């Protein structure tokens, strides 16, 4: 029997960490609060920048996890870090020789930006809602009509002092571009507007997709943040922004306003802090350093991987899943 490693969270980072550790002879145990593995990714439809269906990525991974015989506990929400493991809600503990925290991020609650009326106005939705609509195969306004005009708003819950988020959530820009294109494919006659402050295309193929969005899909990019949304007649939404490139205010009504919600530190981070770990100013867990110690917590036997320490895309989270296995193996002398 190999050494046991408790993995908190069964998203892509957690699954990759478990697979890599298993390959090195350890016995990983995934403790997942949801009722299935896959994390936030499982709620998505297609992935940027290639429009790869989620199941093409998650399917093989889940199969490998199953084939590797990795022990999985779902419906187990970690409540506290305890000596040599974790305690979960409703009693029960999981112990191991090391713990890897891969509990990811929380989606920003768009209701906090009250000026956009999410949860109050018809046809103000988030990127998460739109992804669910894509999955359900039915995208329409609340009134049941096909949208003629759609606005996407970047940086909702990111780069915003008013909601205590100075950080950039990194993946939202490309998400907005991806979803704008998907909407244009679904509704070729529709006008699509993306309101942005900066377009941050950090990954391979991202900038190229942005260019295609402009050239091939006629997506209109307006540099300016929407200051407020209001309900107009017939369920339409009136928005106001400045088109900062022409230096004039701009207003329009749209059939659907999509708020591109950012990432924030997970709610469970507070319980890790109570267990002696450090939460950074941005609400995510603070790794030992951003370089060679990026998967180390600074506390012996506790490691990080994935978006628990910062906004990350799937590729980066998978890489950290592998990297953390390296450091755990070193620590456990596997």
């Amino acid at each position, binding site marked *: 029997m190999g050494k046991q490693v408790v993995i908190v969270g069964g998203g892509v980072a957690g699954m990759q960490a478990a697979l890599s550790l298993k390959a090195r002879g350890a016995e990983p145990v995934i403790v997942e609060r949801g009722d299935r593995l896959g994390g936030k990714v499982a709620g998505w439809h297609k992935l940027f920048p290639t429009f790869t269906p989620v199941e093409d990525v998650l399917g093989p991974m889940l199969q490998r996890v199953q084939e590797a015989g990795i022990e999985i506990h779902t419906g187990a929400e970690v409540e506290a870090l305890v000596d040599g493991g974790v305690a979960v809600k409703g009693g029960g503990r999981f112990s191991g020789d090391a713990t890897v925290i891969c509990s990811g991020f929380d989606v920003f609650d768009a*209701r906090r930006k*009250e*000026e956009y*009326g999410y*949860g*109050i*106005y018809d046809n103000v939705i988030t990127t998460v809602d739109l992804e669910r609509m894509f999955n359900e195969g039915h995208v329409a306004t609340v009134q049941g009509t096909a949208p003629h005009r759609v606005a996407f708003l970047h940086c909702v819950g990111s780069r915003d002092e008013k909601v205590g988020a100075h950080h950039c959530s990194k993946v939202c820009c490309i998400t907005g571009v991806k979803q704008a294109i998907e909407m244009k494919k679904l509704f070729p006659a529709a006008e699509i507007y993306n309101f942005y402050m900066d377009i941050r295309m950090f990954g391979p193929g991202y900038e190229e997709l942005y260019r295609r969005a402009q050239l091939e899909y006629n997506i209109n990019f307006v540099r300016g943040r929407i200051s*407020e949304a*209001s*309900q*107009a*007649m017939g369920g339409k939404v*009136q928005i106001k922004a400045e088109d900062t490139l022409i230096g004039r205010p701009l207003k329009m*009504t749209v059939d659907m306003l999509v708020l591109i919600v950012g990432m924030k530190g997970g709610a469970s981070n507070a319980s890790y802090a109570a267990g002696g770990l450090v939460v950074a100013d941005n609400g995510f867990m603070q790794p030992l350093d951003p370089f060679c110690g990026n998967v180390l917590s600074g506390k012996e036997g506790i490691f990080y991987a994935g978006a628990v320490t910062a906004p990350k895309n799937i590729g980066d989270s998978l890489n950290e899943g592998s990297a953390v296995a390296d450091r755990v193996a070193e620590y456990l002398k596997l």
Partner: protein
Amino acid sequence: MKRNTWQEYQKEVADDNYYYLRSCIRQNFFPGSEKAFVKIIRDELGRNIFDDPAHTSCTGIGYHSDIVLHETIMTVVARQFSLMQDAGLENAAVSCITSFGIYTEVLETWREFPEVEERIRENLYKATGREFYKPRNLAHTSDIIFHHREAIRDRAKYLLVNRRTGEPLRGVEHIGCHYAKIFPKEGIGGVEFPYVLAGMIEAWGGTVVDYPERRHCCGFGFRNYLVQANRGYSIGNSQKKLESMAPYKPDFILTNCPGCGMFLDKWQYTIAEIEGTTYGEDGKGIPVLTYEELAGLVLGYDPWELGLQMHQVDVEPLLNKMGIEYDPAAKYLMPNGKYIGRPAQAAVNMGVE
């Protein structure tokens, strides 16, 4: 509208024992409103309110027009608190939104910079020999009417219901900028979806219609109105609101700020004169009311005693819809029966005799 968030934004509003801080401009614009407030609080609800002849203007308009210094206005505010202390009261009831903004701003300044408060205490003492304590509770008088809205409903003689059709009347509410845009926590319902006026309309049987430019400022803007040549900005903003709300066919506009009520009412006349545009039914204007006037109508007070004849846009269409009995002949008579004269006919009033 699923305006459910308002419940998350509550503030404490005192239930009794108010020290009334009147507004300088409301008594001219809506001369019956403050009188109605005292009557509602004292006679209808049996609460204690002290209407102090010794208090002064808060000097807020001078402050916002750059002619009264910050230090001066804080000392004026300190004097009002000192008078409240003399009266043995702790709950300040502020009638004007500008004043309310001033009081909240001054209290917040003193909280953040205690040395400023000390200096003001010294100023006041040197100037008047007075000392003061700060109010335990500070509320705008629309907060207080909101607080008592169910009690008013219990005594209602008329509801905001169309007598002929049985349908709820449609009100749009307009909140003064300095009610909650300076300190969102000071507003019932917060700043984006304030509930202070909407709650009254709903409690009294009406329905609130939201419209795209609801949050937009009326355009008063102090120096933008006070300088004649700048009034185009002021009226342009009111027009933007009126154009946005008109398609929803509101039966009335309810305001809690003297400037907003004044301008949404009077600018309808000016726009009609300049452009020939009117925004209400049958080519007339949309009646604009203060919350005390609306409460007074609901309680069955005589519309002319409430001062509604002083409005630019005639209120009779609303009175008729509510089924209120009134004497048209008494509109321009003083309480002693003396005729005060009637204004010339204007486009916004066409058809009302």
